[in-house]
């Protein structure tokens, strides 16, 4: 029996998947575990593996197509099976399937113990659909040369799908090199209109001057041509009065369409910063002892530890000491987590990701160091599995290596707090009544006030400072 395979949900926050590349052709045999395609989620590029033995009978979307989770993408079955009916069914389903709007997203993928959040069911009316099924098979591209191969859906038809966009939106997208399949429509029935393309363009790199150029073009390139007799003098000023002054020549701005990751970052951080009541606590840490400790470890064990490793481990131990702060807010209850899983923000190309060190309180400082290096390396290669970057109970963001002294981070819901780490710098310090050269680091805790009150946050921060200032505790 042939069956339809849907775009899988490969992460909690994944709503749309981009089929980056098919690895199997139609007619190819596949066995369980074999990679059929590569799918880009909001965070990573993942392998799409076959679960069953069979033949890839039909690819329903093309390389590069972006579709909502649950949209049919392939038909698999026995060689020679008739799949016409299944194709029809798949098209119907693809039509009913709508991409949830980013702003309609649930604030967070629920607290850890809560059941895994499913994506909201697609509205039946197809509102905000990124793709909708074409009632008929996609027409063949016209023989005339296509102006925009990259962004014209007709040029690379993701079989059976059609992007709804106004003619103006299509022209702008062509001019700006934006792929309409990655643009969320806000017009009727999810139609992509000018403002959506404009927003996509501006999301890419701030001001999109090209867009202005496109916008102004009709006025300058289409001067009024009238066969009418010259206007009498009295009428002329009123007719000419509407002309706009010439615009300055556009500068060379770069327009980058939103990547899946950028879209997710925008969506999640907006929710975090606008719905989580943040407050901030800053403390200075005397890092002299910690820096000595780090050197000793290097000398004795040959293990290289970063300052960040020390901070990660210190946070894990502090959360064990102040377990009330290792918590998440939900609608009905505060959930105090049994485990201490520390997320570490890693900057990667076009964004950031937060791989998680599980049970960081139970791991040795050496293990934490090894694991953090390994996770960071795979994060940069975009090779992390979803379970490796989700479900932290607390996060650390460090910009010290970039010379930042102090900053405040945005909480990653449903976590209750995040620590922002500044640089270790040499400063004059008073010790035993004398001014000495000391090493200081400022750390700032952002707390979700719904979970952590000021005193509790201060207690946690104190604990972190105490551990870093007496680094011997890091060794246990």
């Amino acid at each position: 029996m042939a069956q339809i395979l849907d775009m899988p949900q490969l992460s909690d926050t994944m709503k749309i998947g981009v089929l980056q590349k098919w690895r199997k052709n139609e007619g190819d045999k596949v066995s369980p575990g074999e990679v059929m395609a590569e799918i880009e989620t909001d965070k990573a590029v993942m392998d799409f593996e076959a679960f069953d033995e069979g033949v890839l009978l039909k690819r329903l979307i093309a390389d590069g197509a972006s579709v909502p989770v649950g949209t049919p993408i392939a038909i698999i079955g026995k060689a020679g099976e008739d799949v016409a009916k299944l194709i029809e069914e798949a098209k119907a389903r693809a039509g009913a399937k709508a991409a949830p709007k980013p702003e309609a997203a649930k604030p967070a993928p629920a607290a850890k113990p809560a059941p895994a959040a499913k994506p909201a069911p697609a509205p039946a009316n197809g509102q905000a659909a990124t793709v909708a099924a074409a009632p008929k098979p996609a027409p063949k591209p016209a023989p005339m040369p296509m102006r925009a191969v990259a962004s014209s859906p007709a040029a690379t038809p993701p079989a059976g799908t059609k992007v709804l966009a106004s003619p103006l939106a299509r022209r702008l997208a062509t001019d700006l090199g934006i792929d309409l399949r990655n643009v969320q429509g806000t017009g009727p029935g999810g139609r992509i209109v000018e403002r959506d393309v404009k927003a996509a363009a501006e999301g890419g790199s701030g001001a999109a001057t090209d867009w202005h150029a496109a916008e102004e073009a009709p006025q300058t390139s289409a001067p009024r041509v009238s066969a009418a007799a010259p206007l009498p003098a009295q009428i002329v000023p009123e007719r000419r009065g509407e002309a706009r002054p010439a615009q300055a020549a556009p500068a060379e701005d770069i327009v980058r369409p939103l990547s899946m990751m950028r879209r997710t970052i925008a969506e999640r951080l907006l929710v975090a910063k606008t719905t989580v009541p943040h407050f901030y606590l800053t403390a200075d840490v005397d890092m002299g002892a910690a820096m000595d400790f780090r050197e000793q470890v290097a000398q004795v064990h040959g293990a290289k530890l970063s300052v960040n490793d020390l901070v990660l481990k210190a946070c894990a131990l502090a959360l064990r000491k102040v377990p009330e702060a290792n918590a998440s807010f939900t609608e009905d209850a505060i959930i105090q987590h049994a485990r201490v899983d520390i997320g570490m923000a890693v900057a990667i190309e076009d964004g950031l990701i937060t791989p998680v060190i599980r049970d960081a309180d139970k791991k040795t400082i050496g293990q934490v160091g090894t694991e953090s290096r390994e996770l960071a390396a795979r994060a940069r290669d975009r090779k992390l599995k979803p379970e490796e970057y989700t479900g932290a109970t607390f996060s650390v963001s460090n910009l010290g290596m970039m010379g930042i002294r102090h900053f405040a981070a945005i909480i990653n819901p449903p976590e209750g707090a995040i620590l922002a780490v500044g640089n270790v710098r040499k400063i004059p310090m008073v010790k035993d009544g004398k001014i000495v050269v000391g090493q200081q680091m400022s750390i700032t805790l952002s707390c979700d006030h719904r979970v952590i009150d000021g005193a509790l946050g201060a207690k946690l921060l104190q604990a972190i400072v105490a551990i870093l200032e007496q680094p011997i505790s890091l060794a246990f």
Partner: protein
Amino acid sequence: MPRTVAFREALNEAMAEEMEKDDRIFLMGEEVGYYDGAYKVSKGLLKKFGEKRVIDTPIAEGGFVGVGIGAAMVGLRPIIELMTWNFSFVAADQLINNAAKIRQMSGGQFTLPVVFRGPGGSAHMLAAQHSQSTEALWAHIPGLKVVMPANPKDAKGLLKSAIRDDNPIIFIEGEVLYADQGEIPDGEYTIPLGVAEVKRPGTDLTIIGWSKMVKIALATAEALAAEGIEAEVVDPRTIRPLDEELLVQSVSKTKRCLILEEGWPFNGVGAEIAYRIGRRCFDDLDAPVERLTGADMPMPYNHHLEQQCIPDVPRAVAAAKKLLYLEE
């Protein structure tokens, strides 16, 4: 110094000035002379120009419209007043089969410098037979020019151009516009046929309207401006020949187009304009061209029902917002 005059006075001045200059011009119609015109447009003209040039006719449109056509063929320049355009239907054969065709069928041997003018559109509780917008009918016919001024300045300038034109002109005056006051330039001026005008500049959408719909369009634009939406109002002024270029230029700029039309929707003038905008501005449009028209039915006599059948500001505002995707 510009003067403020009523729409009907502007029309009167246009006829008087042209008649003074050219004694081939005469005015003929029901009640145009001794009664000074059913709507007082021809007030004082009989006194000024005498019975030979201001002629009262019997109630016989088919007859005096035909006389006008014949007079034009033999070298005179008649202005034929129809008491309202609702009465033109009995003269439809003269207008469609003679006026519109003689220049072409005679191989150019005849010119046809005749203006047919009178009030059109709905007024107030005149019921189905006396509330009609006929521009779509006349604009359908090749060979006729259709002119519809919206204010006194346009009325005077366009009527003078119409009188000087060698083609049969359908000149429709909004019945409810006659008392409207407006500034007109001092001294001699004309406004060429076939040239539209931006009545209000704007950036967010284009509202196209003519005759009394210009007033609705301008009021709509004001209502939208209060919400931060800048509508550009464009008046074609001449329905045929249509100044397509200015309409296209405006919509290319604003990306959205709303057409207001008092007449019926099916085969309306707005339908033709929408087609031309759709074709010429296809790659500039961010929304389908929207139309707001009179109701697709004979006009009810009842006041409340009548109001529901004529495009008004609230409905035009709603249509504009729909066009801007601001309302479902």
